[in-house]
């Protein structure tokens, strides 16, 4: 292990009863990195952070912080960490100053050290106006700042922040992100969030978890490249042409011409009014098709209204990666069908829970006899997952124009799409092992 690895998780697993909140999570965070820890609600972000801060213990696997095992040296590990739990739980009846003083005393700081540190903290976190106020009277944004201040009071080399920007208004979010950027200049920061813009603003690297597993880990550019497709939108006038006497193009004509361009992998007509033809093309990440498209349009004498090239955003990748799991979930695949962490089940987990229950009922009905899954089968399943991940983006991108605007619609789309992959899987993957693994696992857990 290199010396500059500050946080190291090795196949961490955590079971809440029979729920697998974390499933062999491994990652490293090096000195000076600001890493975004991404995932939907209930993916296991908080669970991981609680293990790293020695609040709870992992069921299996190990974690080292600052080179020390979290299980063997919890006190030293906690000394090295500044931790801001989700929703910044603070003692409401204390004033900000008293609370920070309390934290510094708990950490065994001298009063003089505390006072010098406070100067910097008050400045960095913008606490000057509220030092004498009771915490319960503060707005949520200020509480988060106090939480940050609390995490900084002992000048720790490592910061672990669990959703520091949730429940904040956009201005407060921007400010907290600015503080984190400021703080992160000479510290190692692990920052969990489900807001991707923040990760893009504050982090150079991201780890994406979903259903208790790490599904992506690397620099943001690399993660973005996972999509490996570029999307072009071309809009051509439907009634006019470049020359006034030209014949306006039909939709079919435009589509065929665009499709014929070298490098175009797929094309789809986007809904528009009857003044323009609008198409979405996909091409490889490496090349840029815009010159060719322009040449074609000029050559044909069409009127180009709009042309743009969009690389995949982190959000697209995030959706693709985490949704692939969901679909797998509904298909009843083993290994992916884990439910969210019971301990951090948020409101929106309820739906998933219900599905889980349904699944379990099915599982019990199908397999009375427990059978172990052979590694070969598991591998096959893993491949399936990857296929899902790759296949999904293109499916999704096909409809991504509507997606961008309306998340709800997207969910519906998703629901509609579900049966197909599930059915495919039923045909390709052996169905019986699926429920039985769950059963077998449950027995192990018991």
């Amino acid at each position, binding site marked *: 292990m290199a010396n500059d690895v500050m946080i190291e998780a090795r196949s961490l697993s955590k079971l809440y009863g029979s729920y697998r909140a974390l499933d062999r999570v491994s990652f490293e965070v090096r000195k000076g990195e600001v890493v975004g820890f991404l995932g939907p609600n209930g993916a296991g972000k908080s669970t991981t952070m609680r293990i790293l801060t020695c609040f709870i213990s992992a069921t299996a696997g190990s974690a080292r912080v600052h080179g020390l095992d979290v299980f063997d040296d919890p006190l030293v590990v*906690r000394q090295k960490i500044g931790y801001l739990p989700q929703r910044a739980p603070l*003692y409401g*009846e204390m004033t900000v100053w008293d609370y920070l003083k309390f934290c510094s005393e708990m950490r065994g700081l001298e009063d003089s050290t505390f006072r010098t540190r406070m100067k910097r903290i008050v400045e960095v976190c913008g606490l000057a106006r509220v030092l004498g106020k009771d915490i319960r009277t503060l707005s949520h944004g200020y509480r988060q700042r106090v939480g940050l201040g609390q995490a900084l009071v002992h000048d720790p080399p490592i910061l672990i922040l669990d959703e520091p920007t949730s429940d904040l208004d956009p201005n407060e979010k921007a400010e907290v992100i600015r503080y984190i950027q400021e703080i992160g200049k000479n510290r190692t920061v692990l920052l969990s969030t489900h807001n991707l813009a923040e990760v893009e603003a504050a982090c150079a690297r991201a780890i994406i978890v979903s259903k208790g597993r790490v599904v992506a880990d690397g620099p943001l550019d690399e993660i973005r490249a996972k999509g490996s497709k570029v999307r072009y939108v071309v809009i051509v006038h439907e009634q006019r042409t470049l020359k006034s006497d030209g014949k306006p193009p039909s939709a079919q004509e435009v589509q065929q011409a665009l499709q014929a361009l070298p490098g175009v992998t797929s094309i789809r007509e986007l809904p528009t009014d009857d003044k323009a033809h609008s198409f979405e093309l996909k091409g490889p990440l490496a090349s840029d098709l815009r010159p060719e498209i322009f040449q074609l349009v000029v050559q044909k004498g069409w009127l180009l209204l709009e042309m743009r090239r969009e690389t995949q955003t982190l959000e697209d990748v995030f959706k693709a990666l985490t949704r692939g799991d969901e679909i797998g979930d509904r298909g009843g695949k083993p290994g992916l069908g884990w439910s969210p962490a019971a*301990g951090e089940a948020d409101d929106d987990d309820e739906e998933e829970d219900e599905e889980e229950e349904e699944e379990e009922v099915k599982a019990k009905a199908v397999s009375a006899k427990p059978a172990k899954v052979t590694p070969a089968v598991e591998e096959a399943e893993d491949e399936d997952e990857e296929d899902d991940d790759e296949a999904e983006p293109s499916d999704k991108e096909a409809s991504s124009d509507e997606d961008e605007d309306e998340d709800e619609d997207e969910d519906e789309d998703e629901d509609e799409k579900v049966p197909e992959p599930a059915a495919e899987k039923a045909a390709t993957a052996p169905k019986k092992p699926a429920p039985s693994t769950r059963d077998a696992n449950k027995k192990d857990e018991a």
Partner: protein
Amino acid sequence: MSATITIARRELRASFDTAVPYVVLCLGLPVLALFFFKAGPGGGFWQAGRASMTELIVLVSRGVAVLASVLTMRVMAEERRSGTLEMLITLPVKDHQVILGKFLGTWLVVLAAIAFSLLFPLMMFKYPWHLGPLAWGPVAAGYLGVVLASAAAVSIGLLISSMTESQIIAYFVTFVILTVLFATSFLVDSIDNESARLVLNFISFDVRVRSMARGLITTRDVLYFLSITLLCLMAAFRVLERRKWA
């Protein structure tokens, strides 16, 4: 150790930030006086015909039971509900320090309340009134009993509070348990079964406090209170530790 004291200090302040201590002082002492002088068994202090503080001490111990259940209900349950427990425990502090600090902080409030009840014998027999000679030995012994019993009561409340996120449940369960323990003598008289009476007499707090208030300090009584305290604190520690594996 310093972390324990820091937690205890914070707990003490948190208790005094609520209205509980002031309500106890303003209402508890007059009520205590009413029971002691007018409504006690045999018609109260004036009817008893002797300078005995025994009844007062038993009454104080019952007051302690009420106070302990009110004070302890918040201690752990509130921390769990609001999530501040996570913040507290991820500070470099051992689980037993958290429990011990919370215990000390709460117990000190109870001790302060007990100290205020000393006003009764002091004012009656020292200054401003001199009702005659009082045997101070039994009073001291009785107060030792109350102090020990209060430690046991606080630790029971702490244990119950650390088992739930609801303050109401913590309060009610603690209150019922402490009422049984501190008012056993009422029960004992109405029960015919000899072995049941033996058991009740054994677990009873007020029977022991009463015998101490008469000046009889036995190792049995002292050990009983100490072991209840220790047992409950250890159990509370285990409950707190359980979060790691649950």
